[in-house]
């Protein structure tokens, strides 16, 4: 991450919206244990009180960095109950490999705002665009409707 992804101007720009910290997992065993870190890199997205909203395990290449950060911001907003903001972030996540989960969560965000039509449309789009994905299977009870 520190030799490939972080040096890119885009990554620096995207991380300017966060308060950033890097911890050596060997030197910070308490934090590593507290967050259940089993492999590195593990990227955690936390609220200011340290509550985890999303994690990504493994190397994250520059071309996927913005997508994963948008998804993480969707989950941060959802965890805080800011469902309109969550919907906007998930809407930005399109295409493989994260599009299926983003469509699922966009639907959840719409449902939590009482937007049943939007929810149905998002999950139908999920079923059509990503058939066979685990996320589509989770939404499959809508298929017959």
């Amino acid at each position, binding site marked *: *991450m*520190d*030799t490939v992804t*972080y*040096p890119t*101007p885009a*990554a*620096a720009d995207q*991380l*300017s*919206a*966060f*308060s*950033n*910290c*890097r*911890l*050596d*997992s*060997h030197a*910070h065993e308490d*934090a*590593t244990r507290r*967050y259940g*870190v089993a492999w*590195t*890199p*593990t*990227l*955690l*997205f*936390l*609220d*200011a*009180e*340290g509550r985890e*909203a999303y994690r990504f395990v493994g190397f994250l290449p520059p071309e996927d960095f913005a997508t994963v950060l948008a998804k993480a*911001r969707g989950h*941060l907003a959802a965890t805080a109950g800011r469902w309109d903001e969550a919907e906007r972030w998930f809407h930005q996540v399109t295409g493989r490999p994260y599009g299926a989960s983003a469509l699922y969560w966009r639907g959840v965000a719409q449902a939590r705002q009482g937007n049943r039509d939007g929810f149905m449309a998002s999950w139908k789009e999920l079923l059509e665009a990503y058939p066979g994905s685990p996320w589509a299977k989770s939404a499959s009870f809508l298929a017959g409707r």
Partner: protein
Amino acid sequence: MSTATEAIRWHRTLEEAQADARAHGRPVFLDFFSPT
């Protein structure tokens, strides 16, 4: 190739990052890494 990430502001501890997050109303990005 640079190994530093000079353009990104990194806090030395999670506690510092959380204090900064509270002050600025933003979330925390925490990267656990293994030195190579």
